[in-house]
C-alpha cells in the first residue's frame, strides 16, 4: 500500500510538472547542435594563448611594439599648409623578424585619387542650386593627401617604399630581429582641409570677419601601424569612418607657428618661458593652485586685440610626451585660454580649455569644469589619470579625441544665447571626448576593427560621469532639472533602436564601416548594454570591480573584445557568455511579458484532476495518501468559502501534519499563505534577461522579485513561477522601472492595461 501511495504521488508530480510537453509531431524530428542561449562562447572566442590568457589578462608572452617620434613641424598659416620632418624609431618587441614596416598615411583619404568616394552609394539629383552646382561641377576637388618628399635611413640613404592608398610599406635594409630598433625619417607636407565645410576630424575653421583660422590638427603625420599577435600588421585601410590603431611611444615635437598664436597639444611644454609672456607665466602659476575656478591665461580682450595685427614672426613650441599612442595640437591667434588644477589621487592634473570668443559665454563657464569633473569620474571607475593635463578645444561641429587633447562643439548664437540642447550638447561632448583619454588612448583597443570597444565603453562611463557632473555642479542644470539629462545610458533610450527594423541593424560585433545607424550601433547600444549589466544584471559592486580590473590590466596595452569579455567574468564569478552572445553578437531584443496568471486556494477536497488520476489507476479516493489539494479560483471544485483563509484553515490534512511535526514554538513562526498564484511569463524577444517583476498587493504594498536570466535555460519562450502569498495580488508588472530595454511593454502588465497610443495621447493633449 505504501508503495502504491508513492507511485501515485510521483504520478501527480509528473503530470503537474513544469514542462509543458509539446504534442508529439507525426514525423520524427531531426537532431540539432547546441543552440542554447547559455552555451559558452568557445566558437566565437579565439583560443587563449601565451599572449592573451583565458582569464582575459595579458599573457606571459604578451608583447607590444614601440614607436618613438621626433618631429619638426612648420605651419604655413598664409597657405594653410603643414610640413614636417619626422624621425621614427621603431622597436620590434615581437618574437617575429620583420622584413618591412607599415606606416599609415591617413591624410591620403583626402587625396584626389582617394577611393573613399567610390564606395559611397549615391544617386543623381534632378536639380541643384547654382551654388552647389558651381561647387560640384565647376571647381577642382580639394587635394588634401600627403606629399611624401623623402623616406631615408639615419645615414641619409633613401629607403624603398610603396604607397597603397592610406598605407605605406617601407622596406628595411635588413630584417628587424626581436629586440632590434630601426630609425628612419620622412619628410612630408599637405594642404590642411577646412573641417567645417569639408568635414573631418582635423583641419581649420576659417573666420571671414577677421580673416583668421583656428587649427585643430591630428593624424597629420605618417604614423606607425600596429603589429601584434592578433592582426599581424593592421592592414585595414582608412576609409574615413573606422578610427585608429596605434602603438605607444614617446614624442618630441617642435611646432613652429606665427608668433602671436596660442598653441597647446599632447605632451609637456618644455620651453614655456620662451613662448609665454611674463603675464601668462604669472597666471599659469596661479592656475596651478586654483582648484575651484579656472584662471584665464589669455583673456578674450587679449585674443581680440591680436585679430588684426597678424605677426609675421614665428615661434616654436616644444612638446614632449611619454607613453602616448598619438599626438594632436591646436593653434590660433584667436584662442582664449583658461586652466584649473584638479586633484587626481595625490597628483595635480591641469584641466585646460582653448576657445575662440564665439564659444562664450558657454565655454568660459563650463568647459574647464567639465574637463576636471570628467577626470575625477573616470579615474574612480578605472585608474588615476596618468597624464599631467587634459585640454578641451572648441571647434565647430567637432567632437574628436587625442591623447591629452580633444576638440568639442557647442556654440552660442551671435548674441550669446544658447538653448539647453547646445549647453548639454557641449557638456556631454566634452565629457565624452575627455573620457576618451581612458578608452582608447590609454586602454588602447583597436578602433579600426572594433569601434564599440572605445566608443561603447566610453559612452557607458560618460553616462556615469554626466550624472556625477550634475551632482557636483547643480548650477549647470537648467530650471526644474534634478539630474543631468543624459542622452544615452538609460535602458529606455535604446528601445527605439533595438525594436527597429532588423534590415537596418547590425550586431555590435561588426566592423564600424559595415554597420547601419553607426551612433546607435557603436555608442548607444554597447553603452546601454554595459549600463544594464551594471545596474540590473550584476549590480554595481561586482560590475565596478571587474570593469576596473579590465581597465587596469589593459592600461597602456592593446586589448581585444575577448579580453574585455573574459575579464568581466573572471573578476566577478559571473558567467556572462549569454549576455555577450545576446547583446553583442546578435541583433536580438528584449521582450518579456506576463502571459497568464492563475489563482489557487488550498482545499481538503480532491480536485477533478486528482479524481481523474485516481480513477485511471483504479484507486478509491479513500486510498489516497494525505494530500494538500490546490483548487483554481473559478474552477468547478472552487467554492467561495476557501477565499481569504490560510492554508491551515482550508486543509485539515495540513493542519494535522503541522500539529504532529512542529513544536508550538515552531508553529508560532510558520508562514500563513492564503493565496497561491501560478504566473506564466512569455518571451517573444530573442534576448534572455532576468525577469524583474513587481507584485502589488490588495493592501497597496508591493515588492519586486528578480528571477535570474538562467530561468530561461530550458525553455526560451515561456516559464512559470508559483507564488504563495499571505496577501492577495492585485497587479503584476514586468520591468516596472524600464531597466531592461523591453521593446514592447504592452504585454508587461496583469491585468492587461490598455494603453493609449502615443499618437492618440498627443492628439488629445493638443486638442485640450
Amino acid at each position: 500500500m505504501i508503495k502504491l501511495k508513492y507511485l501515485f504521488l510521483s504520478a501527480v508530480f509528473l503530470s503537474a510538472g513544469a514542462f509543458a510537453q509539446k504534442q508529439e509531431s507525426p514525423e520524427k524530428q531531426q537532431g540539432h547542435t547546441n543552440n542554447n542561449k547559455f552555451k559558452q562562447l568557445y566558437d566565437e572566442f579565439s583560443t587563449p594563448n601565451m599572449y592573451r590568457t583565458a582569464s582575459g589578462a595579458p599573457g606571459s608572452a604578451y608583447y607590444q611594439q614601440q614607436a618613438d617620434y621626433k618631429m619638426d613641424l612648420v605651419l604655413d598659416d598664409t597657405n594653410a599648409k603643414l610640413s614636417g620632418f619626422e624621425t621614427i624609431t621603431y622597436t620590434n618587441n615581437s618574437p617575429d623578424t620583420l622584413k618591412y614596416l607599415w606606416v599609415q598615411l591617413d591624410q591620403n583619404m583626402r587625396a584626389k585619387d582617394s577611393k573613399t568616394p567610390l564606395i559611397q552609394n549615391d544617386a543623381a539629383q534632378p536639380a541643384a542650386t547654382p551654388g552647389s552646382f558651381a561647387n560640384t561641377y565647376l571647381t577642382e576637388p580639394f587635394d588634401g593627401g600627403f606629399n611624401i618628399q623623402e623616406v631615408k635611413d639615419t645615414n641619409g640613404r633613401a629607403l624603398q617604399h610603396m604607397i597603397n592608398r592610406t598605407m605605406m610599406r617601407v622596406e628595411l635594409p635588413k630584417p628587424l630581429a626581436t629586440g632590434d630598433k630601426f630609425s628612419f625619417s620622412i619628410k612630408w607636407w599637405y594642404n590642411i582641409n577646412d573641417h567645417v565645410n569639408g568635414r573631418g576630424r582635423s583641419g581649420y575653421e576659417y573666420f571671414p570677419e577677421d580673416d583668421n583660422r583656428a587649427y585643430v590638427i591630428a593624424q597629420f603625420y605618417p604614423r606607425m601601424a600596429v603589429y601584434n599577435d592578433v592582426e599581424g600588421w593592421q592592414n585595414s585601410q582608412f576609409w574615413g569612418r573606422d578610427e585608429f590603431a596605434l602603438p605607444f611611444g614617446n614624442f618630441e615635437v617642435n611646432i613652429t607657428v606665427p608668433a602671436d598664436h596660442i598653441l597647446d597639444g599632447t605632451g609637456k611644454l618644455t620651453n614655456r618661458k620662451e613662448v609665454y609672456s611674463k603675464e601668462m607665466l604669472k597666471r599659469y602659476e596661479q592656475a596651478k593652485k586654483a582648484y575651484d575656478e579656472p584662471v584665464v591665461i589669455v583673456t578674450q580682450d587679449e585674443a581680440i586685440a591680436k585679430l588684426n595685427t597678424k605677426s609675421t614672426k614665428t615661434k616654436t613650441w616644444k612638446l614632449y610626451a611619454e607613453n602616448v599612442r598619438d599626438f594632436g595640437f591646436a593653434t590660433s591667434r584667436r584662442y582664449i585660454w583658461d586652466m584649473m588644477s584638479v586633484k587626481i589621487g595625490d597628483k595635480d592634473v591641469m584641466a585646460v580649455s582653448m576657445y575662440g570668443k564665439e564659444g562664450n559665454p558657454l565655454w568660459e563657464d563650463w568647459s574647464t569644469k567639465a574637463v576636471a569633473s570628467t577626470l575625477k569620474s573616470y579615474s574612480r571607475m578605472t585608474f588615476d589619470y596618468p597624464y599631467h593635463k587634459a585640454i578641451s578645444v572648441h571647434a565647430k561641429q567637432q567632437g574628436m579625441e587625442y591623447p591629452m587633447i580633444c576638440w568639442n562643439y557647442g556654440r552660442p548664437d551671435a548674441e550669446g544665447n544658447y538653448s539647453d540642447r547646445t549647453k548639454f550638447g557641449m557638456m556631454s561632448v566634452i565629457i565624452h571626448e575627455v573620457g576618451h583619454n581612458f578608452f582608447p588612448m590609454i586602454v588602447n583597443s583597436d578602433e579600426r576593427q572594433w569601434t564599440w570597444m572605445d566608443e561603447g565603453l566610453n559612452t557607458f562611463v560618460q553616462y556615469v560621469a554626466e550624472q556625477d557632473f550634475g551632482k557636483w555642479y547643480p548650477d549647470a542644470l537648467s530650471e526644474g532639472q534634478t539630474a543631468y539629462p543624459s542622452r544615452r545610458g538609460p535602458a529606455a533610450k535604446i528601445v527605439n533602436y533595438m525594436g527597429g527594423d532588423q534590415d537596418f541593424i547590425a550586431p555590435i560585433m561588426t566592423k564600424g564601416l559595415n554597420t547601419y545607424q553607426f551612433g546607435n550601433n557603436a555608442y548607444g547600444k554597447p553603452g546601454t548594454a554595459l549600463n544594464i549589466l551594471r545596474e540590473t544584471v550584476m549590480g554595481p559592486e561586482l560590475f565596478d570591480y571587474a570593469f576596473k580590473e579590465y581597465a587596469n590590466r589593459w592600461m597602456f596595452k592593446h586589448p581585444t573584445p575577448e579580453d574585455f569579455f573574459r575579464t568581466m567574468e573572471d573578476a566577478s564569478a559571473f558567467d556572462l557568455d549569454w549576455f555577450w552572445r545576446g547583446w553583442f553578437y546578435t541583433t536580438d531584443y528584449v521582450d518579456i511579458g506576463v502571459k497568464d496568471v492563475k489563482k489557487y486556494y488550498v482545499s481538503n477536497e480532491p480536485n477533478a484532476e486528482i479524481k481523474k488520476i485516481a480513477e485511471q489507476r483504479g484507486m478509491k479516493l479513500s486510498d489516497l495518501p494525505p494530500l494538500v489539494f490546490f483548487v483554481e479560483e473559478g474552477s468547478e471544485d472552487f467554492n467561495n468559502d476557501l477565499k481569504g483563509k490560510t492554508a491551515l484553515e482550508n486543509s485539515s490534512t495540513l493542519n494535522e501534519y503541522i500539529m504532529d511535526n512542529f513544536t508550538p514554538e515552531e508553529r508560532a513562526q510558520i508562514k500563513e499563505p492564503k493565496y497561491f498564484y501560478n504566473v506564466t511569463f512569455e518571451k517573444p524577444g530573442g534576448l534572455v534577461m532576468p525577469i524583474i517583476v513587481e507584485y502589488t498587493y490588495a493592501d497597496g504594498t508591493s515588492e519586486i522579485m528578480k528571477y535570474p536570466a538562467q530561468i530561461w535555460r530550458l525553455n526560451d519562450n515561456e516559464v512559470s513561477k508559483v507564488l504563495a502569498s499571505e496577501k492577495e495580488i492585485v497587479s503584476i508588472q514586468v520591468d516596472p522601472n524600464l531597466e531592461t530595454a523591453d521593446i514592447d511593454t504592452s504585454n508587461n502588465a496583469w491585468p492587461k492595461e490598455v494603453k493609449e497610443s502615443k499618437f492618440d495621447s498627443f492628439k488629445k493633449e493638443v486638442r485640450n
Partner: protein
Amino acid sequence: MKNLKIAILLLVIPALAFTVPHKYYVSVTSVEYVKEKESVQIISRIFIDDFENLLRKRYDDKITLAIQDELSTVNMYTERYLKEKLQIEINGKPVKLNFIGKEYEDDIMFCYLEIEGVKAINSIEITNKVLLDLFSEQENIIKCKINGKNKSFLLREGNISRLLNFH
C-alpha cells in the same frame, strides 16, 4: 565624362568624414492605419539639430528649436515643409495630411500628422523627401503598420517613393 566623375566625387566627399559622436542623417516615420477611427496616424522622428538647420536655411536663420521662447512661426514652417516633402496617395489618390503638432524628446523632434476619413486602404504610396534638400546622404526610414501587416523600407536620394499594395 571626366567632369561628371569629379562632380560625383565632390557630391559625396561631405559624406566621408565623421566626427565623434558621429553624425548620420536618418529620420524614422511610422505610418499606422487605425481602421476603427478611419485614420492614418503618422509620427515622424527627426533629429532636432538637422531640422533646425533646415528651418534656418530655408525660412529664417533666427530660429532655434526646443527652447522656451521658440518662435511662433516654427509650427507654421514645420507644417508647410512636411506637407510639401511628405506626400501620400491612398488607393491612387493624393490625400490631405493634417498637421497635429510636434514635441521634443532628447535630441529628437516628433512630428504628428494624420489622414482622416480613410475607410479602407488597398494601396498606399509614400513619398518622403524630408531633409534631402539639405543632406544628399539623408535616409528616411518608413515603418508601416497597415491592415495588420508590418512593412519597413528605406527612402533616399534617387529612391524617394514606395508603393504598397494590399489585396
